[in-house]
């Protein structure tokens, strides 16, 4: 009885707010959109979104406040300072998951957006696994996801593998013991890796491959101890994988590392699926023949995801325009504008994923995995761990590169998890 009353109340409030909104004039005024999308397909995608939004809401003056550099580090620094100074942007880009929850939501700085989800029917249109990730314990949703990226992808060139006489390894053990020596005997770099964060990216694929879905999730929910033999084994395997990699990793960007595969200098590269856009657009390679992909070893059936989202901070000057923007972002139309340019999957299931003019062969393939696989969150991209953990982890990854000491690395990670409040 009580539940029903409160449900009615919610509906009444939602209806009221809607009546209120429609009774008012169309949203107008300034709308500052804060992101770190300043180059390539990301920037093109954001600009296309803004252009369409302006057509829909000509009264709104959109300010694109994108901050470049440091793969988002600089932008996050600016964002933190602006929030601390009580001057938040109207809406900002944030990775779904802990990067959002551990700070912005936990600090009570975000408005719940459940009414927008209900009004647009998104609760049925967004996949359940994704909704679970962005819903807090009280059932509130604070952000609208614009895209889905996959982290655990292994890239290669099929013709080259044939030439070298190797196949795509199914497990990390196979990679380390069979694939790697075979390639090294032919003077080919088995795996190309880049600077620090790409090493952390590789690490999470190794962890998922070694621990499996439950074991990997356990690292973040506390059921897998960082000092357990399994967790130490992750570092052991990761160390052996690094031994199969190029020795100039600190000098390479992710593009440099991916390019080694395209150039035939290296056999494999583990990188998120933004690499598909790089192979396709920048290097002009054909999916399937010029470059190909597989789930990283041992992670078949698992989809390690990350997602860019936007939310509504409390106390902004023009919430009406922000709500209009967020309502637009989640629609199939907006997602079909943005994602083909950015090179990512739409989060909304009613998007035209089957349209091969919009989404190339890689994304068709990835989408079937997205809808059928077990979904896990990426550590390297802020989904399962708070910023303080990620920062400390960067140092641990860098230290491990020097000493390959699994015991120290796992002990350090355990302390870090404790210190940053991830486990009690």
């Amino acid at each position, binding site marked *: 009885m009580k539940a029903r009353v409160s449900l009615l109340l919610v509906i009444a409030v939602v209806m009221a707010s809607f009546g209120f909104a429609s009774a008012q004039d169309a949203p107008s005024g300034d709308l500052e959109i804060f992101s770190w999308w*300043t*180059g*390539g397909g990301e920037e093109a995608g954001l600009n296309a979104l803004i252009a369409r939004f302006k057509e829909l809401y000509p009264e709104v003056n959109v300010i694109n*406040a994108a*901050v*470049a*550099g*440091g*793969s988002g580090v*600089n*932008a996050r*620094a*600016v964002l933190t*300072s*602006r929030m*601390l*100074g*009580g*001057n938040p942007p109207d809406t900002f880009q944030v990775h779904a998951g802990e990067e959002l929850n551990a700070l912005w939501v936990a600090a009570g700085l975000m408005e719940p957006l459940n009414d927008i989800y209900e009004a647009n029917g998104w609760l049925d249109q967004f996949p359940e696994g994704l909704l679970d990730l962005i819903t807090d314990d009280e059932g509130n949703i604070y952000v609208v996801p614009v895209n889905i990226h996959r982290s655990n992808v292994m890239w290669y060139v099929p013709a080259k593998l044939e030439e070298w006489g190797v196949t795509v390894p199914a497990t990390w053990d196979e990679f380390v013991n069979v694939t790697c020596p075979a390639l090294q005997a032919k003077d080919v770099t088995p795996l190309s890796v880049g600077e620090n964060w790409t090493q952390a990216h590789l690490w999470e694929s190794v962890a998922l491959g070694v621990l499996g879905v439950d074991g990997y999730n356990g690292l973040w929910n506390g059921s897998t101890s960082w000092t357990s033999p399994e967790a130490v084994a992750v570092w052991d395997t990761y160390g052996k994988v690094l031994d199969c990699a190029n020795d100039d990793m600190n000098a390479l*960007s992710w*593009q*440099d590392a991916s390019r080694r595969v395209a150039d035939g200098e290296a056999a494999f590269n583990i990188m998120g699926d933004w690499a598909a856009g*790089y192979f396709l657009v*920048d290097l002009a390679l054909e999916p399937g023949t010029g470059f190909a992909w597989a789930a990283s070893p041992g992670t078949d059936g698992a989809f390690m995801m990350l997602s860019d989202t936007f939310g509504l901070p409390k106390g902004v000057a023009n919430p009406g325009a922000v709500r209009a923007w967020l309502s637009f972002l989640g629609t199939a139309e907006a997602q079909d504008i943005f994602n083909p340019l950015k090179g990512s999957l739409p989060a909304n299931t009613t998007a035209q994923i089957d349209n091969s003019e919009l989404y190339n062969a890689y994304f068709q393939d990835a989408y079937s995995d997205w809808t059928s696989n077990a979904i896990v969150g990426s550590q390297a991209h802020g989904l399962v761990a708070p910023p303080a953990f990620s920062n400390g982890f960067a140092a641990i990854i860098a230290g491990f590169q020097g000493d390959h000491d699994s015991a120290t690395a796992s002990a350090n990670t355990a302390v870090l998890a404790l210190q940053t409040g991830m486990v009690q």
Partner: protein
Amino acid sequence: MTTASRPALQQRSMSLSRFVIYGLLILFAAIFLIPVYMVLMTGFKNPAEVSISTMWQFPSSFSLESYGQALQVLAPGLTNSFLLVIPATILSSVLGSLNGYVLSKWRFPGANILFPLMLFGMFIPYQAILIPLVQFLSSIGLYDSLPGLILVHVVYGLPITTLVFRNYYAEVPNEMLEAGAIDGCGFFGLYWHVVLPLSLPGFVVVIIWQFTQIWNEFLFGVTVAQGTPTVTVALQNLSGSQIVQWNVQMAAALLAALPTLVVYILLGRYFIRGLLAGSVKG
């Protein structure tokens, strides 16, 4: 040994040592210019021609394409930097001149303690004030804006500008000011009629120094005004993102360095004077 042979011997050893001296100088000059050669060659090459195997060769044709691309990326940064550098340089020079005048000619009790305390500000690692600085600027609404960055550069420029003017005005004979004082000039009258007309060389030194320092600064730019990136921040963003196009990066590096290089080559004498002033004794 005859007396006649000694000068001849000296002559020969002289010319040998001359040869070694010039040889060494030319060798070092060549080493110093290697990066310049690389920047120019890479920047003028066609993008298709930029590769590791030919990186030391002359471009087959001179192309300005990289400069066009670099300029496009760097243009907002260049504009921001000019908007920052000009007011910040003028303000910190004027304040420095006044401070130098006060500290050299109007000594008051405690000045000997205040001055080194002011100077210390020029040596601190700016990381040590970064967190409160960001908070302070946020609280007065100047965070992530050019005016905020101007304020920061004016304040942290004060020690060096004050130092240069203090040492410079110390050379101005007190008799000149005393004569002015007898004519009835007060604090401002003396500054305006006696000190300021003598100050041009001092201003040139300080303006050049501040211009170069502020133009080249990175840490404040990257933390205090991300939304309006200065040229160094824009250059770093270019090098840290997307595909590494070395030709564009080298062209951009040259563009970013050009204003300070021009100033240095035209007015190098004054630049060196500012540089030596940085070692306090001057």
